């Protein structure tokens, strides 16, 4: 071919290997990227002795070329090469690494294995969810080239202030897989786009997606010993590739267009004012322990990527076989590169880190006081407006709610909020004192270290554990469908079935359950901090008592959209509560000290008598009044009063006097079955009210017109 003399010289090959034109590559960025007329491949191994690039045509079992890297194509521990004339759309690639197989020394090199690029931005092999893979395949998860050329048309991350968020936790497939979703492509990113009008109407402004990094639903897949039903890795907390969106969640995964489809989802959510938070799993990988498969890290540089015992076995702080060695500088860079990529290339608004306490352990497993990875993420220039939320515990016994190394940046899933709210709801003794802390944003946990209420992600239910409907319908878990004889899943549910275990047609029980769900939502949505709602809880989704549906791809784990109609009353209350929260600044103050109004403190507590909460162990009544001056109108104060009675009898609450010129308006009363929401917010002129058994009432005070 005759080249134009204006070509750059580095757009021309210098060498030929196995019939392919090549030239020495650039070591950064890692992975594959487009170079003039070719593709730049870059891969790291510190202990590997030689490296071969293995090239496949799409879906073919045998490679069409294997290109050993010449020794002068290695810089430090990085092999890099530009290969010319490849069809980037039809290409799948991997590596073979030579090196010692010496597990006791931490090395598990095996050059018979084709290894996936840990920086692969697109991965083939599990293109359609649930399609049985070829178990004999020599290269199951296949790195591909992504284009990274999406046109965002000016759309970007929303940067909503944390205290203004209402998060909705959802599983991409479970959210829309059911026929009842009415979606054209059930169980996909595309279907989620179809549900955006619903989310907007509900009023949430952030969606937290359970893992969407490529994982294998067939990992540890098995048949249920009794029913023969196939069990999957449904939740996906086991990453195959950190840089690639799951293809099987894309309607277009079979065409390799999951990257575009997922970006289109994010763009559409942003257009609707909804942020996207990814649930990310950096604590372990899909390679398991010494019995597990060699897919990528294990064969690339086992000793770098995993925490190993002195004998070369895998530490298991994740409860899943291995532990990623997050505070090794190389792994730290990988995590940072990964998050930067999702923030910049996908416009992701935030990350929730699964078992985040692992990220603060040193390479030998000891908790660090100043973990470099957490610090790097907190101060990273590209991630500076991303929400960073820790699940502040791990499976190795570290529990750091309130003490997670936050560097002024990290939020936390507040497990203590969940437990306290659940216990208060079911009427346990001795909960009002702690509840007072929780509804203020948990100052007992966060104030001393200078953190703010929106550090706390408040939730009562999440994917892990009972749904809200099950929380009020079951005393114990019922996980038989998981095929582990009901041994799996937590036992500390703090749940109460309201009088019968599971299904019931007793109208009294059903009414109480519904009220309890409304009470839970009312407490959650009037607490300071960031509320998080589990998908479907707004209309009473049940998993039939299963509190650990990680392996079920069935009606148990799919949202039944029919409930939206049958539990329309609950849905209307939740929707109204979310909108109420948005209207009331007082509920979203992100400062423990607040700015007191001349008449009212920022947050105060009350009991049957105003200003006199009953802190005794037997108390099941607590009211809180939150106040905040309107920033645009300093003469006006937003005031919300929430009274809760979790006793099995009615209880009189005398209202605090509103400031002069203000009067009370009634907004919610969960005890009023016929009208739990008062959209017209009538003036409330009585001096107090009788709160029904297990009920919540919400009032607001505003200036007499």
């Amino acid at each position, binding site marked *: 071919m005759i080249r134009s003399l204006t070509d750059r010289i580095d757009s021309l090959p210098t060498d030929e290997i196995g019939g392919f034109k090549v030239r020495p590559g650039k070591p950064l960025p890692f992975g594959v990227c487009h170079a003039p007329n070719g593709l730049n491949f870059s891969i790291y191994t510190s202990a590997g002795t030689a490296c071969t690039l293995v090239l496949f045509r799409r879906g073919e079992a045998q490679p069409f070329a294997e290109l050993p890297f010449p020794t002068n194509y290695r810089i430090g521990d990085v092999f890099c090469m530009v290969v010319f004339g490849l069809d980037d759309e039809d290409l799948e690639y991997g590596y073979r690494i030579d090196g010692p197989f010496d597990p006791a020394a931490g090395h598990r090199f095996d050059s018979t294995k084709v290894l996936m690029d840990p920086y692969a931005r697109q991965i083939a092999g599990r293109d359609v969810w649930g399609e049985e893979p070829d178990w004999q395949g020599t290269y199951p998860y296949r790195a591909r080239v992504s284009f990274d050329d999406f046109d965002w048309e000016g759309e970007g991350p929303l940067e909503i202030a944390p205290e203004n968020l209402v998060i909705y936790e959802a599983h991409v497939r479970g959210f829309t897989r059911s026929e009842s979703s009415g979606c054209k492509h059930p169980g996909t990113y595309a279907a989620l786009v179809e549900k955006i009008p619903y989310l907007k109407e509900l009023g949430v402004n952030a969606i937290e997606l359970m893992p969407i990094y490529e994982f294998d639903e067939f990992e540890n897949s098995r048949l249920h010993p009794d029913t023969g039903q196939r069990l999957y890795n449904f939740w996906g907390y086991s990453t195959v590739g950190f840089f690639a969106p799951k293809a099987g969640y894309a309607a277009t995964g079979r*065409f390799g267009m999951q990257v575009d489809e997922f970006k289109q989802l994010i763009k559409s959510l942003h257009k609707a004012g909804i942020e996207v938070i990814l649930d990310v799993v950096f604590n372990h990988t899909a390679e398991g322990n010494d019995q597990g498969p060699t897919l990528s890290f294990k064969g690339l540089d086992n000793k770098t990527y995993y925490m190993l015992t002195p004998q070369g076995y895998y530490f298991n702080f994740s409860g899943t076989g291995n532990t990623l060695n997050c505070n090794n500088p190389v792994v730290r860079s990988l995590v940072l590169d990964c998050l930067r990529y999702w923030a910049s290339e996908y416009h992701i608004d935030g990350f929730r880190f699964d078992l985040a306490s692992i990220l603060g352990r040193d390479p030998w497993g000891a908790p660090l006081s100043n973990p470099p990875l957490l610090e790097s993420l907190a101060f990273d220039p590209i991630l500076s407006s991303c929400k960073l939320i820790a699940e502040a515990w791990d499976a190795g016994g570290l529990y750091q709610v309130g003490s997670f190394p936050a560097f002024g940046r990290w939020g936390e899933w507040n497990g203590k909020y969940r437990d306290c709210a659940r216990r208060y709801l079911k009427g346990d003794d001795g909960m009002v004192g702690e509840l007072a802390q929780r509804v203020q944003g948990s100052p007992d946990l966060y104030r001393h270290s200078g953190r703010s209420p929106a550090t706390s992600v408040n939730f009562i239910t999440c994917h892990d554990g009972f749904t809200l409907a099950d929380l009020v319908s079951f005393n114990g878990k019922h996980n038989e469908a998981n095929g582990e004889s009901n041994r799996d899943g937590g036992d500390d549910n703090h749940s109460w079935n309201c009088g019968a275990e599971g299904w019931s047609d007793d109208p009294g029980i059903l009414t109480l359950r519904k009220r309890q769900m409304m009470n839970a939502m009312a407490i959650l949505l009037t607490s300071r901090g960031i509320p998080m709602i589990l998908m479907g809880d707004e209309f009473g989704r049940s998993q039939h008592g299963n509190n650990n549906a990680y392996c079920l791809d069935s009606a148990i784990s799919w949202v039944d959209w029919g409930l939206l109609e049958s539990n329309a009353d609950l849905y209307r209350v939740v929707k109204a509560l979310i909108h109420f929260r948005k209207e009331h600044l007082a509920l979203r103050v992100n400062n423990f000290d607040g700015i007191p109004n001349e008449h009212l403190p920022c947050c105060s507590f009350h009991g049957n008598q105003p200003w006199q909460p009953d802190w005794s162990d037997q108390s099941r009544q607590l009211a809180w009044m939150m106040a905040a001056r309107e920033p645009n109108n300093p003469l006006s104060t937003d005031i919300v009063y929430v009274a809760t009675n979790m006793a099995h009898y009615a209880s009189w609450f005398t209202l605090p006097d509103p400031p002069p010129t203000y009067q009370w308006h009634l907004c919610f009363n969960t005890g009023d079955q016929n009208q739990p929401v008062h959209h017209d917010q009538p003036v409330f002129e009585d001096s107090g009210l009788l709160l029904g058994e297990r009920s919540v009432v919400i009032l607001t005070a505003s200036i007499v017109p």
Partner: protein
Amino acid sequence: MELSKSIIQGWQAIHVSGQVDSKTVAELREFIDTKLDEGLPVALDMEGVPFMSSAGLRTLLILHRRTQDMGVLLALVGIASEIADTMKVTGFYDYFTIHPNLESLPPA
């Protein structure tokens, strides 16, 4: 892949026949590069295209930019429903004016 051009109702119609993927897309790009006339709106007739890969769809975007630069309209004609569906869920669809067939093209 077969490519031809005709003038219909004042549009320059490019008739594509065959699958558009990374193997054939260069031909289409070459055709567009060399055969487009300035000043006339472009109708890409895809009635004979059963499948378009990601690279094919990206070529449509390039054509979209090209016609924007030329200051002329671009219409896609006769897209198979499966291709249209892929375009919708990946966000490509919104950029284009779509007509079911050549007969439905308005006079340019």
